[in-house]
């Protein structure tokens, strides 16, 4: 897997924010795109921490989870 460096990560998130804001019809000013990029970067870092817990979807199966 290619490691994404912080600056590159920030640039990609900014593109994601700008594009998604357009799709979601959020009228964002330039300074808000920056503020939102920084916020989303932090929030995605939180989300990644939970993805890294290694959980796979295992609906209705606590038994299987306990064997992992």
């Amino acid at each position, binding site marked *: 897997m290619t490691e994404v460096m912080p600056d590159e990560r920030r640039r990609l998130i900014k593109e*994601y*924010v700008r594009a*998604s804001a357009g799709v*979601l*019809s*959020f*009228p964002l000013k330039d300074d*808000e795109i920056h*503020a*939102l990029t*920084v*916020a*989303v970067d*932090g*929030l*995605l870092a*939180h*989300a990644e*921490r*939970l*993805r890294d*817990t290694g*959980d796979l*979807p295992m609906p209705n199966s606590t038994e299987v989870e306990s064997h992992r």
Partner: protein
Amino acid sequence: MSSGDLAFRSITEAAREGGSAVQLTTAVLSRIEELDPGLHAYVTVAAEIATQRATDLDVRGGRRGPLWGIPVGFKDNIATADMRTTANSHVLETWQPTTDAAVVANMRRAGAVVIGKHNLNEFGWSLPSPDDLTPAPRNPWNTESAAIGSSSGSAVAVAAGLCFGALGTDSGGSVRLPAANCGVVGLKPSHGALPLEGAFGVPTLSDIGPIARCVNDVRLLMAAASGAAERGSLPAQGGEGLGSIRVGLLPALARTIEVDPEIGRAYLDAVRELERLGGRIVELSGIESEAATAAVRVILNAEAYAEHASSIRRHPDRYGASARVHLTQGAFLGAADYIYALRFLKRYAAKVDSLFDSVDCLVTPTAPYLTAEEARRPETHRAGLGDMFTSPFNLSGNPALSVPAGFSSAKMPIGIQIVGRMQDDQRLLWIAEQYEQSTPWHTQHPLG
């Protein structure tokens, strides 16, 4: 009796010795007029409505509830039918709800006089911003400093004697953190103990919680807000001494964040005091807060976005700059992220619950920082460091309370958090009261 004499009485003392409902209300209103222009604790002061209500109670006569004639306030994200409810946002600047939130209706039935609506960070999830409807509340212990939010107006009002008690909302520490920062008591009850109906919040994490100047006042506010008082079920104060209570410490939790050294010392003093009272100290492992804080951030932002997406699209300019960013960021999470966070919640709640097999309560510092300015540093805020001790218990759902535990060298208040077993809020209140009554901190007040 002057307004200053009355202002810092407990609810029980005020009801017994404070005179008529009109006298109490007049005293509080006069203090608000004098001090609130510098504190910004209130978004709305309903002087006329409160005075009329107090007059009606006096004419009717006879005590009809534990809050009879007691002036209280509500965080302005809790609906009140007779005064506007703004959430400190231009979006709701003139909104007059048609009905009271369930907790407001219960408090009125217990005899409360609603004096006004308390200031907050816009919709409870933003940082103070120059375009806020009402400027951010100042800390009454040092008005050069802001008060930590989001129920900051409620904690400021209670600490400064601008009401006898308040209800705020807590999704990650928003009752406990301002309570600690202002030197008062704040309780996040067991999740769902108070109905959230009629209050802005996120359903998975938010709870309405009382703020007051002593633990017994918090107990009375809980009884009134839940409707238990009306049903004649008023919990009694506990006896003296902690007996064989087992007090759990979470050293791994404290190591994940750099706590202000003065808070660290006050926390250790509090642990020693609990031990002196008979508590047995038990060090626990296996609970960390970083993943818990991460799960809180994901759930909070996903649910807040779901609440506000349509409104932000329709009138973005009526939201403040900070609220627009805070309430929009959840749009960029994946659905799976939300599901992972909910799964984590389930496991975490079970893990915290299992701790109570070996202890009766957990004790931590409430806040790692002494001032709002430190807590609001961008990198600190983004990482969720300011609520590292409090938000894990929004995730687990346990009742958790902040009680005054001392002051810094600059006379800023410090609180400790005591966490109880799920659905056993009364035992938590009893433990906290034993500690409170053995220390002098709750007897000290600002702007006396």
